[in-house]
């Protein structure tokens, strides 16, 4: 091979190599240039997300219940601080916050190698000190941070709920828009309407150098405060309800009726399902959660059940209040005691009921009650006559025991009226209560806990009995209901059959006032009541609160107790010696507007403990009804109580 040939070989190699360069250049710049261009832009920009202030929560009159306030917070950019500087900085911060250096160091260590360590909110004095002596505070920034403020403290706590740090599940569910170091609604409206309240986080787009240090602001998308939630609740009424329930619990102890530790009360508009008051005792101050609550503190509160909204989560036997549902089933289906065919047909109540064996098939043989004498459906409701409603249950048993399709006719009425299922209230963790039937018992029997839930003879003999229907008829046995469920059921009984979905939120508006969500009246279903039902329901409920009725004493102090109606309920629980006192009332009865449901767990007799609460609340609701105290010598309103307290202190 001569030299010229060798040069030619080298020339070919050269052409090949440089063709490769051109090809690659084409590929990088032209074929995939767009992708690299995007990557280049991405590298030059750094987005910092800003926190949006949570939306406000206001009551129906506009009273501010929850809002966000911008406060200065100290942030330490740990990466900008050398180890030696950090030691000096810890001393400075320790002196500034009057906090032991050990604790400051612990905050640093807990935060780990994160970029920004929040050191907490600073006062104006602390802030100006830090800014004046900035050389002593390397890497320290003062940033604006929105924090949650609850101006009314514990008022309406269970409706408002509280916020907290998002759990890993929350973060996974919410996606990238949720700031993992931010807050999220954990309970109540804060949780249920979190999407609205969160607002839209803002973005600060910086041009950065290769080290990621900002060179200048490229674009700012301001954060948008969350929407304003307008509740249906009235904080004035709420204060009265809270006061009344607390008075009743004291009353219960004074009368030695019981030793209540749990209670709930609601007031609902029977025309549209909006809740005007919702109280659950014990309550809490949502402000506790604003800056994070300690584990110990949280567990202590948890033990006291403060995070249970008993109005929707507290499912207890409703007792005789359920007789109103049995009343409706009887009058609408024509199910009267044996031998009767009209609501006015009477039985003679001797205080006990003797059952033929075939009627009960091995169950309880004798049921006792105080004797009510001659009783029809109307007086049975007014006097809360067990015997009458037991006989209604027996009629159902006799008529349908061989008709599996219809043997649960009473339960069907209960379910129609929203018992045993969720009402659909706009609050989280609603309990659906329980309406037992053959199917439930059969499920229990097959479950591992069957022997605990059912007595042994049910496994050997009949699993479902006439006695079970008798229990349901008076709201005992395995019937469980929440105060809100009872309120919805009573509302439907008196409002023409509209089973409403109760709600605590009326509407949601954006910060600039646009309507975002109009909750409004939602009807789950409408029941066609018979003409007899419509004729008698208000009248019969009125019998309860007037002469001869079980709540007559509590309502007798009213100027016009005929404006009210309702039903007492004193129910028993296996786990407690004390009775649970219920009262579900409606007022004004001629043109029903409000349903008031009161439940005082372990409170004692309904007429003595629960009915006075409902009466006191109704007095507040009705114009021209002076408010009278629940307890002899007690105050009638929270304002009076406060005044009495002030006078007391002045005198001592």
């Amino acid at each position, binding site marked *: 091979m001569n*030299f*010229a040939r*060798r*040069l030619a*070989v*080298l*020339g070919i190699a*050269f052409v090949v*190599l*440089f063709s*490769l*360069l*051109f090809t*690659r*250049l*084409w590929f*990088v*710049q*032209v074929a*995939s*240039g*767009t*992708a*690299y*261009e995007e*990557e*280049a*832009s991405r*590298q*030059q920009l750094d987005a910092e997300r800003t926190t949006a202030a949570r939306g406000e929560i206001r009551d129906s009159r506009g009273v501010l219940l929850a809002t966000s306030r911008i406060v200065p917070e100290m942030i330490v950019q740990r990466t900008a601080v050398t180890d030696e500087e950090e030691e000096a900085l810890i001393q400075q911060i320790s002196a500034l916050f009057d906090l032991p250096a050990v604790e400051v160091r612990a905050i640093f260590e807990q935060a780990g190698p994160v970029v920004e360590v929040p050191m907490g909110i600073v006062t104006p004095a602390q802030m100006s000190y830090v800014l004046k002596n900035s050389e002593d505070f390397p890497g320290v920034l003062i940033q604006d941070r929105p924090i949650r403020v609850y101006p009314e403290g514990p008022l309406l706590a269970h409706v408002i709920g509280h916020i907290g740090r998002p759990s890993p599940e929350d973060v996974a569910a919410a996606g990238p828009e949720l700031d993992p170091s931010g807050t999220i609604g954990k309970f109540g409206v804060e949780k249920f309407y979190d999407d609205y309240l969160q607002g839209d986080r803002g973005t600060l787009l910086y041009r950065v*150098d*290769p080290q990621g240090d900002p*060179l200048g602001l490229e674009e700012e998308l301001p954060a948008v405060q969350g929407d304003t939630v307008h509740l249906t609740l009235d904080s004035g009424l709420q204060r009265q309800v809270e006061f009344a329930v607390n008075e009743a619990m004291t009353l219960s102890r004074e009368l030695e009726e019981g030793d209540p530790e749990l209670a709930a009360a609601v007031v609902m508009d029977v025309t549209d399902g909006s809740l005007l008051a919702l109280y659950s005792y014990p309550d809490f101050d949502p402000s506790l959660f604003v800056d994070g609550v300690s584990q110990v503190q949280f567990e202590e509160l948890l033990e006291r059940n403060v995070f249970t909204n008993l109005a929707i989560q507290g499912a207890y036997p409703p007792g005789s209040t359920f007789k109103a549902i049995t009343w409706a089933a009887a009058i609408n289906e024509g199910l009267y005691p044996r031998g009767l065919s009209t609501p006015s047909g009477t039985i003679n109540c001797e205080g006990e009921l003797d059952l033929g064996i075939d009627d009960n098939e091995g169950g309880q043989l004798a049921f006792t009650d105080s004797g009510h004498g001659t009783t029809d459906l109307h007086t049975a409701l007014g006097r809360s006559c067990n015997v009458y409603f037991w006989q209604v249950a027996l009629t159902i048993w006799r008529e349908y025991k061989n008709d599996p399709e219809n043997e649960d006719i009473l339960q069907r009425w209960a379910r129609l009226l929203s018992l045993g299922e969720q009402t659909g209230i706009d609050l989280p963790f609603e309990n659906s209560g329980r309406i037992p039937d053959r199917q439930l018992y059969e499920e229990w029997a097959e479950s591992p806990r069957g022997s605990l839930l059912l007595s042994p003879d049910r496994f050997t003999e009949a699993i479902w009995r006439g006695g079970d229907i008798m229990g349901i008829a008076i709201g005992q046995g395995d019937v469980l209901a929440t105060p809100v469920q009872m309120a919805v059921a009573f509302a439907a009984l008196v409002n023409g059959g509209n089973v409403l979905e109760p709600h605590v939120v009326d509407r949601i508006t954006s910060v600039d006032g646009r309507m975002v969500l109009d909750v409004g009246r939602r009807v789950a279903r409408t029941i066609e009541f018979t003409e007899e039902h419509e004729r008698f329901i208000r009248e019969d409920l009125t019998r309860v609160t007037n002469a001869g009725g079980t709540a007559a004493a509590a309502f007798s102090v009213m100027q016009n107790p005929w404006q009210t109606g309702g039903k007492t309920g004193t129910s028993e629980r296996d786990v407690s010696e004390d009775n649970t006192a219920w009262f579900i009332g409606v007022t004004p009865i001629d043109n029903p507007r409000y349903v008031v449901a009161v439940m005082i767990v372990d409170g004692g007799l309904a007429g003595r403990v629960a009915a006075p609460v409902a009466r006191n609340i109704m007095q507040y609701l009705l114009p021209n009804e002076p408010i009278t105290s629940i307890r002899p010598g007690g105050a009638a309103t929270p304002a009076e109580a406060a005044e009495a307290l002030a006078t007391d202190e002045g005198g001592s």
Partner: protein
Amino acid sequence: MAILESPNSGVPSIVADRKRPGPDVVSFIVMAALMTVGVLMIYASTREQLELQNLDPGRLMQRQIIFAVVAVGVYVVGSLIDYREFRNFAAWIYVGTLGTLVLLISPLIPAQENVKRWIDLGIFQVQPSEFAKITMVIVLATVLAPARQEGMQWKRIAQALFLVAIPSLLIFFQPDLGTMLVFTFMTFVMLFAGGATWKQLLALGAAAVGAGMVVFQRGMLKEYQLERLTAFYDPDADPLGIAYQQAQSVTAIGSGQLTGKGLFDGALTNLRFVPEQETDFIFTAVGEQLGFLGSALVIAAFVILLWRVFVIAATARDRFGSLMAVGIGSMIMFQVFVNIGMTMKIMPVTGLPLPFLSYGGSSLLTFAFAMGLLNSIWRRRSPVPGETYIV
């Protein structure tokens, strides 16, 4: 080397009326154009950073302009010297180069960032391994040129390899892997051009691979040397940030797209998103600012330059000139391909500057002198009256 008759000897000469051919204008223009582009790119990639440090933003550019002016002087000197004279001084040049390289790795010269590659002369630093490339071109051409008459025996190859091995080893200890690879490539190409058989080349290739494996397996490399080497084939390990550097590099080039961001409008260039951009990664500044059209033009300029090298090698008056041209050409080709290939992620990061464009005096002067030598070979392709050498 035969001494020639003088033009005054009275013997009529066919060359009596000939004048020396003119310089290779094309390669000079291309070289000057590349140096100009280099100066602009250096300014683009350093001005903002210098400004941030409150320094004159044109500082590095001005230094490069001074180097470029000196480089043109070096080019002229290289053109004027009769390339054939180097044969006489090859031994001295070689010994001088070795001496400098030994001095460099001796304790007399302080290391910079773990590397002993520069001699600090106060106002500027010298990188002797750059100049050593020219030395090796001269030495190898001197040793291999006689093969035209005497044949490429193993003895001659051994001699050539021995002469390359010593400076290679000294450079290995700096360490400067890039220059070592230039030496290796250059040696193979010059051996091939000088007449080595395929068999000989294959045997050499096999030996080189074997030697490399022994070096690796015996663990003869220091930790950081090993890291530099492993980064070639295992970018994930990335102990030196090489993968990051290369990713940034290809991003910058790619973002230039077809027409580029415009001179001084390259965001990544302005903000120094590519480490070492003004030196080894200068091509990324071209890519981002001038786009495919500008980048292709730069590569095309190198193609023209190498085309001239081939022409000069083919038309050289003697084998020594041809081999020198081939050596210089292989050096340029290798560095251009490896450097641009590295910035586009088809070659490993080896630390080789891009001829004429990268910031740095040593490289610029070396390549300018090499271009001067090429011009000298071109101008002396045919005899003229009064020449000392005929062969």
